[in-house]
């Protein structure tokens, strides 16, 4: 894969420098068979330094979590070497295994094997609550 230009795939750009690996993990990119390039500390006019992730071939990745982690990220969809879509990121309705519930009375504290699920309870206030106990996520 040529890192500068992919024919088909996704370019996740303007990632805050240093957080590419977190995003790599959150998106489950380790499970992909295709080529994935992580570029660290690239020059950015906007951010000074930034990280970039390029994913070859695959475009159907659930990117919702990015809207929560860093709404400044941009996602470009590349087909036939052309930029065909810039995806708009918004806060996802649901976050799975992104946040941890800190409420000691929550069932997730007693059963660590449970999936951590948070739902968006107030979009304007960017408030997420635990699906199980409704405790607010700490920001």
């Amino acid at each position, binding site marked *: 894969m040529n890192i500068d230009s992919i024919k088909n795939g996704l370019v996740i750009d303007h990632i805050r420098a240093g957080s590419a690996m977190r995003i790599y993990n959150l998106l489950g990119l380790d499970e992909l068979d295709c080529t994935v390039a992580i570029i660290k500390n690239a020059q950015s006019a906007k951010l000074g330094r930034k990280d970039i992730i390029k994913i070859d071939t695959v475009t159907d990745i659930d990117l919702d979590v990015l809207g929560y982690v860093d709404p400044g990220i941009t996602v470009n969809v590349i087909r036939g070497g052309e930029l065909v879509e810039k995806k708009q990121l918004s806060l996802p309705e649901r976050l799975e295994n992104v946040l941890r519930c800190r409420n000691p*009375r929550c*069932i997730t504290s007693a*059963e660590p*094997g*449970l999936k951590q699920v948070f739902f968006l309870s107030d979009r304007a206030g960017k408030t997420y609550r*635990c699906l*199980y106990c409704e405790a607010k996520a700490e920001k």
Partner: protein
Amino acid sequence: MRNLIDIRELTTDEIASLLDTGDDIMAHPGDYRELCRYKKLATLFFEPSTRTRLSFEAAMYELGGQVLGFSEAASSSAAKGESVADTVRVVGCYADIIAMRHPKEGAPLVAAGVSPVPVINAGDGGHNHPTQTLTDLMTIRREKGGLGGFTIGLCGDLKFGRTVHSLISALARYDGVKFVLISPEELKLPSYVKNDVLRAGGCEFRQTAADLAEVIPELDVLYMTRVQRERFFNEEDYIRLRDSYILTPAKLINAKSDLTILHPLPRVNEISTEIDSDPRACYFRQALCGKYVRMALILKLLEVTK
């Protein structure tokens, strides 16, 4: 509707239909005596709550069904470290419906996610207790002739009292319910309930730390609550706050003649026993409603009709 985990899952029509069935069972218990024959209710009580458990068990027996289960975690598989999900998958092989009480918030939701049979939340920590709310609604509707158009005073622990929070969110849907929130400063209703439920619902309400006798004349319903010892770090605070609002015959002097006095029970000393014989004391009739509305709920979830 397949499970009941949170009272907010029910539409106003669904609530009305459950209360109608509850009223009908109360009026014609004989018509319902055989409806759940050969069906089994599992009461999975990971923490003891004798009152709630007996209410569920009585409900199932009166429908002609049978009951199995456990009444505390020590006598359950949880003591051996089994997950809620596994317990429910197994019990779902033996019972037709499950009523679960659990000290951890959200446990019944986990159960509902994997259970092959309907799950009823019989209380999850300080979180939800929807059958208590249905009980309260059925009692109020019977005593007042409807839901709406009355002033309800909620008194005591409004901060930690989960029954109060869910009753408020249920009543906020009805027209013309006015709320008077009576509590000491330390036990005031949390601001998220005031904002998300009362203000968002456009409900009329006011908060007061005044003496009960002062506000009682305007009330149509008075909902007393228990101040629970386990919510407090020190004994002095507990005792001071516990004794701050006690209903006595003297405080009732200026109350309306058709006031409805409710309490989720068990009481400690919030209501003087001298009041028990007053016709306005409805808390034991409330316990009776608890059984009938649970019968209605079991029928609904098992999709059994008369």
